[in-house]
């Protein structure tokens, strides 16, 4: 037999367990203890967006030679190393190198059955794709350090990211503290990032395409020289141990983005130069002793002043079985569209701002995932897969707009290995 579990823990047991947790040998691992191990890890991820039904792709193409129905494939290599430095510090470095190939939607157009541009509401909305010639290489490095003291931690990080036509620098600072016999945790943080884009041909394509597609295409938000944008963000969150088996956490964040926020690789895209984003999140971690598994439940509410409102609900079961940890997961996402988004109404282009990016549309998505970790000390082997599908009919709120033909389906596979020493 295994340890029997009789019924749910009583108030008496809770009181005893809480008192016992104050004893040094029984205290749950505290985050304010500096790590004592070095960790070296590698991960390879293959992200594949599924190709689009050719019937949804316009014959018009950003480059000559016919519309591609292939979308992005990204190969990602991640390397990470972390090490304690003395008794009170830890340092970590992460390097991510990714290669992106494929095509992306430039805009949408209405076409009749012969492929001639049309304004009729009966006709289908099709994607105008870039040629399958894009190949981007992006490298990102992050350096972080944490200082551990008796009742909390202070962390700082800097990051750099570079690709052919884009550079980004970021920095963050956060503090975490514990109170009330380590039953309550509070953390606050701020971060800043500065991005510079130097689109190769991006902002001019829109104008060229305008001629091909017809009357109502508005053209992109031209970038003169380089496009800059900045992001400032802050968060505060609190966690509480409710019982030896249950921890809950909640937090809010605010982010302000300013600068050239239009997408230089879209042909019909002009966005406000400021965006204010707000999130609220709540999570619960519950240890289910009889089955030796932890139930993770997370909810996130997001809203911004572009009119997008979203809800995300994630559930994952961390099931331990001998040397394996098996983690099935399910995530539901739903969002409303940005106020200036439209693919159906040509009149939209009369407004100051407009966009036909599927990411700003009204849609819902479901992600199913399975992750398996094999722990063979001192090495952990990680294998995970994820399938994502999105659609307008999966959204919580139904919009008047037709479904964007560019809504994604993708798969993501990761292989990883982590060595502690």
């Amino acid at each position: 037999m295994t340890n029997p579990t009789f019924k749910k823990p009583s108030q008496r047991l809770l009181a005893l367990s809480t008192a016992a947790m104050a004893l040094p040998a029984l205290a749950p691992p505290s985050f304010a203890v500096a790590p004592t191990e070095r960790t070296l890890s590698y991960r390879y991820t293959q992200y594949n967006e599924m190709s689009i039904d050719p019937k949804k792709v316009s014959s018009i193409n950003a480059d000559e030679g016919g519309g591609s129905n292939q979308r992005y494939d990204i190969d990602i290599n991640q390397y990470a190393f972390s090490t304690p430095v003395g008794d009170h510090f830890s340092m970590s470095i992460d390097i991510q190198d990714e290669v992106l190939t494929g095509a992306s939607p430039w805009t949408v157009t209405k076409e009749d059955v012969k492929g001639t541009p049309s304004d009729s509401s009966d006709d289908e909305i099709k994607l105008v794709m870039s040629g399958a010639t894009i190949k981007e290489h992006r490298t990102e490095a992050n350096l972080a350090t944490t200082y551990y003291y008796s009742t909390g931690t202070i962390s700082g990080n800097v990051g750099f990211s570079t690709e052919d036509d884009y550079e980004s620098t970021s920095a963050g600072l956060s503090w975490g503290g514990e109170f009330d016999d380590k039953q309550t945790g509070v953390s606050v943080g701020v971060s800043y990032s500065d991005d510079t884009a130097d689109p190769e041909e991006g902002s001019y394509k829109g104008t060229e395409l305008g001629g091909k597609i017809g009357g109502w295409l508005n053209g992109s938000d031209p970038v003169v020289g380089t496009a800059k944008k900045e992001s400032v963000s802050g968060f505060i969150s609190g966690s509480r141990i409710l019982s030896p088996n249950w921890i809950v956490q909640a937090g809010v964040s605010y982010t302000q983005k300013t600068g050239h926020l239009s997408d230089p690789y879209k042909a019909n895209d002009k966005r406000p130069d400021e965006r204010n984003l707000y999130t609220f999140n709540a999570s619960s971690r519950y240890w289910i002793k009889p089955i030796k598994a932890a139930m993770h439940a997370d909810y996130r509410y997001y809203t911004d002043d572009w009119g997008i409102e979203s809800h995300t609900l994630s559930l994952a079961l961390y099931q331990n079985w001998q040397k394996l940890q098996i983690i099935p997961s399910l995530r539901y996402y739903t969002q409303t569209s940005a106020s200036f988004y439209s693919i159906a109404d040509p009149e939209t282009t009369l407004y100051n701002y407009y966009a036909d990016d599927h990411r700003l549309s009204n849609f819902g998505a479901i992600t199913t995932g399975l992750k398996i970790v094999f722990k063979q000390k001192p090495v952990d082997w990680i294998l995970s897969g994820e399938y994502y599908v999105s659609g307008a009919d999966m959204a919580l709120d139904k919009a008047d707009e037709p479904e964007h033909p560019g809504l994604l389906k993708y798969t993501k596979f990761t292989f990883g290995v982590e060595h502690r020493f």
Partner: protein
Amino acid sequence: MGSPCQIRLRASSLSHAQALCQPLMQEAWRFEAKYSRYLPTSLVSQINASAGAPLVLDSEAAAIIDYAAELYQQSDGLFDITSGVLRTAWDFSSAQLPAAQTIQALLPNIGWQQVDWQNPKLLLPAGMQIDLGGVVKEYAADALAQCAQAQGIDSGLIELGGDIRVFGSLTWPIGISDPRQPSRPLLQLTLEAGGFATSGNYQRYFMHAGKRYSHILNPKTGWPVVTPAGVSVIADNCLIAGSVSTLALLMGEEQCLSWLYDVGLPFLCVFNDGRIVNEFAPSAN
């Protein structure tokens, strides 16, 4: 610890296991040296010697006192670390009942509520004594397990006088003997990471005029409690298992079952008349 102890570890070789045991045995001796009321140099003896004057405790001792104070609350005053002085009146080897006046004279020096405890400052009123025997042995088993894990030992069993803590990936067989006939095995079960403890009245009791007097004393009256013969409990750690089985005994034969069900941990309770309530899993036999 005043009783046989054992450490079992999984290691690559016997000599390696023996080497790994050394620091654990040192840790066990540290507990003995610090908390034994029989050693004049122990912290407990120092606390008892300085009764009447305030003393500042280290964080480990303070946490143990805090925990004992919680047990006092949870047991409605039946678990009381100041009740040790009653032992001076009850001599279990002579099988003689103490005079009622002797007990009465001791009662004013018993009662945790009289102690001024403001973590980490302890002011024990003059004439009073504390005895941490009811919690330290169990806690020490947990502390040794933690110490072993910190050394990288992936699986093991620590037993300090019948109180057991198992850690890591392996499961370990545990035998429970019949509390009325300790040489007779009653039940065998397999314990995975967690604590197991047994409290019983069979170790020390005497019969007087046909009545069984156990060494479990009610600190409010100074007289023995009519306890069940033995209670075993499984919990996440040895300290909780030990506290729950000890408190169950203190609740007495009448109250112990409802108290055990109220706590909600798996238990086995054997009564003096041989009745057994087995609330381990059905497959435990």
